[in-house]
């Protein structure tokens, strides 16, 4: 057989294979609707979303780029096509503020949604734009922003990369993973798992339950944590990069062996006062019932920052 014949054979084999697979698996019809538009003359953005994923990314252009993606999946295409129309979004612009909201409008006649519905909003915004987000049951990704950012969310994950402005986050049962945050960060969490990597600037955390892991950068100016029943792990590159004022009621404070002598117990409270150099930025933690651990980074991980 010549080369062309062989190649043709290899083109036909996947056809046949796909045919065979189709018997064992269900075919799902996917209908997707993508809406793209540009928004101009806006200096503030308000986003209210429910059961939708959101991406907000800073860019160097003056206007906003919005992409809304609706997806409906169902074995019956007619159903997917009908139910994709349950999804909508609303954009209002007033006095330089753009407000974006997503909606699920389910008619009375259809008490239940049959398709798998998915909504994704992607926004490209000027880096210094003020953004306020309220979200339930969705994942949020924010990156390359330097303005005033407010996020209030419940459930879902918030993933942050490179935020340099004034950031205010409130989370209920939502997890947070942040890399490279500096400027000013205010974080209020309720039963959230929080990981802050490459943390700099001025940071205030208010945590209730949940877990908190922090890898501070040397450009951290101050870190104040007011926590209740939160498991806290602090991983500085070197212990002596910071001065510490840690208090933990009814639970231990674990520090590297070199500083073990600075941990004291007063009645039911553990205290770690460690001040290697008065010029070093202060880390203050107040916690109760859950362990506080300070780990020095394992040697091989120092460059990685992960």
């Amino acid at each position, binding site marked *: 057989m010549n080369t062309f014949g062989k190649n043709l054979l*290899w083109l036909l*084999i*996947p056809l046949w294979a796909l045919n065979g697979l189709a018997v064992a*698996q269900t075919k*799902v019809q*996917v209908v997707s609707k993508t809406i*793209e538009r540009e928004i101009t003359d806006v200096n503030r953005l308000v986003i209210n979303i429910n059961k939708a994923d959101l991406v907000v990314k800073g860019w160097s252009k003056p206007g906003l780029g919005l992409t809304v993606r609706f997806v409906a999946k169902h074995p019956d295409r007619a159903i997917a096509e009908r139910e994709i129309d349950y999804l909508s979004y609303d954009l209002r612009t007033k006095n330089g503020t753009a407000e974006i909201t997503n909606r699920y409008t389910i008619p009375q006649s259809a008490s*239940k949604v049959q398709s798998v519905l998915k909504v994704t909003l992607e926004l490209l915004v000027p880096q210094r734009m003020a953004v306020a987000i309220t979200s339930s049951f969705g994942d949020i990704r924010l990156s390359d922003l330097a303005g005033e950012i407010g996020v209030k969310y419940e*459930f879902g994950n918030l993933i942050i990369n490179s935020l340099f402005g004034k950031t205010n986050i409130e989370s209920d049962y939502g997890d947070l993973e942040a890399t490279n945050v500096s400027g000013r960060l205010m974080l209020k969490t309720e039963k959230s798992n929080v990981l802050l990597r490459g943390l700099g600037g001025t940071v205030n955390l208010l945590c209730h339950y949940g877990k908190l892991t922090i890898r501070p950068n040397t450009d951290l100016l101050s870190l104040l944590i007011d926590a209740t029943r939160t498991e806290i792990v602090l991983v500085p590159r070197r212990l002596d990069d910071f001065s510490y004022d840690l208090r933990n009621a009814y639970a231990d404070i674990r520090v590297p062996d070199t500083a073990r002598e600075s941990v004291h117990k007063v009645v039911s409270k553990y205290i770690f006062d460690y001040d290697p150099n008065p010029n070093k930025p202060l880390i203050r933690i107040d916690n109760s019932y859950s362990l506080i651990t300070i780990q020095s980074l394992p040697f091989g991980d120092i460059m990685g920052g992960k």
Partner: protein
Amino acid sequence: MNWPDAIQHLPEHEPRLDAWDRLDADPRIADLRAGAALDIFLQKLPQHAPKADLWSRIDAELTAEETLDRALTTLPQHEPRADMWAELDLKLASGTGDATVRALPIRPATERNPFGRRMAWATAASVVLCLLGGYLFYQKTGSGETVTVAYSVETAPAAMPEMTADLPADNTADEHLEAFINQACEQQAVACKKPEVQDLRQQLADLDQRKQQINKQLTVFSDDADLVRAQIRIENERADVTKELVRILRI
């Protein structure tokens, strides 16, 4: 001077030439004319009377809705059988679900063999097929939006929805817990007044409220992945809080 003479002496006045035009242009005259026209039109409008049984029909519809609403509240509630999980477990164990997962052999990317090239052809063929499978519609709307509608086909493992849908809700443990807490609080009022117990109970109430909210959404969106994840989180959190509460109250 008597009056016929006086009349002779009266000055004469002519209306200005454009007097009629000015009167015509006066908006008050226009309003008067429009009003008169409207009256004429109103008189010409046909008369309609509602059907005699209209009120009774409206009344009947309202009564029917009311009856339905009332009937809804009295509908029986159905719970899955308590042994559902055990039965499912048994079915799985007996090998009805025969899906196996096998790791694919990993081939180094640098290895040059004719099979690699064939795979490339096969991949290319699949891509072509996918491209043929999906097709697009473009539409430019008036509000500066570009709308694209696309259709494609995905293959999903069969019977997945049936496996995940409608998790049986076993409330008996919850009822036991509530009874246990109430009993413990009656018997050892001091323990129950501890701030940590009160805090935990408050949390449990909050979690229950959130659980109900999520369950309500789940009835509309069936097994929506985000909602199921939230539900799992709440249930796990409830489990932790419950265990701690029981541990404290048992002492």
